[in-house]
């Protein structure tokens, strides 16, 4: 296989992955032989779709007329005043159909599944947002859909479980391991091994074997591309900083990727610190993990000294994952993106801050990004600009938040 020709010039940070699906030493295709031919088939089909002049316009039409893109870039004036420092803009992907950024990638992947002639779709989900988005596009295209979801998440994201069922998906609770996102992904991969010939696996984040980290990033890059153009229109310049929450890392890659070659733009990913980075209950794979192989790629993982994967913890089901997309591991090692963390409590505080000052109930995932913004914006000059990815709305989280606040619904 030939190395793909650089799309962005020889020194660009945007050319990854290489022909083996690697970003530096991260990424790759660590799957059982049964899946390997299929992974190669997905890669070939994706490359053919990218090369087909009809593909992107078709995707764009669905994104515009069905998903509701472009999502607005909102200047959060009251929040900015409250924090008293940098100007804060929200990239409002919570306004997408189904309420999060996940559908950007689901739409691209379902179009690919159709092109490949696949007749059945599977997905894993943590918070349920990716499951809902997958069930939605499957309903739209009339394909049967099976969603694997950890039993713990089934309990804490009940409204999304019901939504998926209303949309016609079968939701299978997974009880292995800690019964959360990692285990749901294992089970989806096992399903795929057993149903390779007719099934397309719509992965919810920039993880999994190559080409998924690249493909999901490409589909999510619509976020950063829009934000760049919108901020240019509003302010006539680049932002000084972009901030996004990290579960597997897809909303963050989507926002960051178009800015990788703009060195004046600081990029900050916010991992879930759970009960604190020095407890064992967090999901901060970059801050506290080390490189290993899980779910088809080499990346930073929470693991013990024997290479056994450790359970993550976060109040946010969407961040509760012991790994991270391989491109983030690379961006971390080369120092292009900074990775910070916010605790459950900080996210809860930010959740309420956003709700009261902007009238927007955010998902608990972007509440982690906002928690970091609230920490650093006050010390920044007023002429500085931060773009934060408000990648999901919080309807799904009100039960979790009520419980954390000691409110009985």
């Amino acid at each position: 296989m030939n190395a793909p020709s650089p799309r962005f010039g020889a020194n660009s940070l945007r050319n990854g992955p290489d022909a083996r699906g690697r970003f530096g030493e991260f990424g790759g295709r660590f799957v059982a032989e049964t899946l390997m031919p299929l992974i190669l088939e997905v890669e070939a089909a994706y490359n053919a779709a990218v090369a087909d002049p009809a593909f992107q316009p078709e995707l764009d039409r669905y994104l515009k007329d069905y998903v509701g893109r472009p999502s607005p870039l909102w200047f959060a004036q009251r929040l900015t005043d409250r924090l008293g420092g940098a100007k804060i803009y929200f990239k409002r992907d919570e306004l997408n159909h189904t309420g999060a950024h996940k559908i950007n990638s689901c739409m691209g992947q379902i179009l690919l599944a159709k092109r490949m002639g696949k007749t059945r779709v599977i997905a894993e989900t943590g918070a349920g947002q990716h499951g809902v988005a997958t069930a939605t596009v499957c309903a739209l295209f009339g394909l049967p859909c099976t969603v694997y979801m950890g039993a713990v998440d089934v309990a804490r994201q009940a409204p999304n479980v019901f939504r998926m069922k209303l949309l016609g998906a079968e939701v299978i609770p997974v009880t292995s391991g800690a019964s959360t996102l990692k285990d749901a992904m294992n089970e989806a991969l096992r399903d795929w091994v057993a149903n390779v010939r007719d099934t397309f696996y719509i992965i919810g984040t920039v993880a999994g074997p190559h080409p998924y980290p690249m493909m999901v990033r490409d589909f999510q890059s619509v976020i950063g591309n829009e934000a760049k153009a919108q901020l240019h229109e509003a302010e006539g310049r680049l932002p000084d900083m972009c901030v996004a929450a990290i579960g597997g890392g897809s909303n963050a890659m989507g926002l960051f990727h178009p800015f990788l070659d703009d060195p004046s733009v600081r990029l900050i990913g916010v991992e879930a610190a759970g009960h604190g980075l020095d407890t064992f209950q967090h999901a901060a794979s970059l801050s506290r993990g080390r490189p290993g192989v899980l779910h088809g790629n080499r990346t930073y993982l929470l693991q013990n000294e024997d290479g056994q994967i450790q359970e993550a913890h976060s109040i946010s089901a969407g961040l509760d994952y012991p790994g991270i997309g391989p491109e983030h591991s690379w961006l971390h090692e080369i120092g292009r993106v900074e990775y910070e963390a916010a605790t459950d409590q900080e996210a809860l505080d930010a959740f309420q801050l956003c709700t009261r000052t902007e009238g927007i109930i955010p998902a608990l995932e972007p509440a982690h990004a906002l928690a970091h913004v609230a920490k650093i914006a006050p010390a920044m000059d007023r002429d500085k600009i931060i773009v934060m990815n408000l990648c999901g709305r919080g309807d799904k989280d009100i039960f979790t938040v009520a419980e954390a606040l000691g409110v009985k619904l």
Partner: protein
Amino acid sequence: MSRIAARFAKLKAEGRGALMPFVEAWDPDHATSLALLKGMPAAGADLIEIGCPFTDPMADGPTIQLAGRRALDAGASMKNTLAMVRDFRADDTDTPIILMGYLNPILSYGVERFCADCAGFGVDGLIIVDLPSEEADLVLPHATANGLDIIRLIAPTTDDARLPLVLNGSSGFVYYVSITGITGTRTASGDELADAIPRIRRFTDLPIAIGFGVRTAAQAAGAVTHADGAVVASALIDIVKADLDSNGGKPKPDTVARVLAQVTALAEGVRGVRSAA
């Protein structure tokens, strides 16, 4: 000649196929799994696979998933899995031992040191489920330097165009995953095997073992009419699990004996068939 090659040569001379039972290291505890391992050659095992417990066994069904969980709860680690091999080698220097597992615990151990320790403790071959040919250069040089066979999985989805790539760098034998699916679920039909095995033989002279879905003596006999060996895992672990379930989580006094009796029954099935090759 490696122990694996020597064993297959001997079986070929005898005109029969190989039985390869599987034991998950430290399931449900160290003593039970070591007793199983040590008892297997006398019970009729020709080669033995030792499963290395991992938290996230992507290609395994519930039986081996739970076995791995029990093993980890009992204190299994890569280090003390290797120690089991050393203890086994104290009284058996002939029966080939193959470790089967996932990549991450090996990476964590350090690939180079792992391969050296495997060789030093008496391991003969490695099956690394999530290391396809495309990524094999991570391990292959160290395995080769230490005289370890790298046993590749071949699946029904591995087509003729791909087979040479998968076989390149394989040694010992090749492991035919007889179904598209995870361990302990479906069983391939005789017709499927009759198609698949000659197809692979066109590309290699290595012995071929069939695994995934071989449970009974009749199925093991069926496997060696087409191929050179049969791997049996979940059916043996199920015996352990049934005892644990009915005995408050502890093995019964005769659990080891009954698993070994099943190994003997499987061996009789295999030995009743004249070699295909």
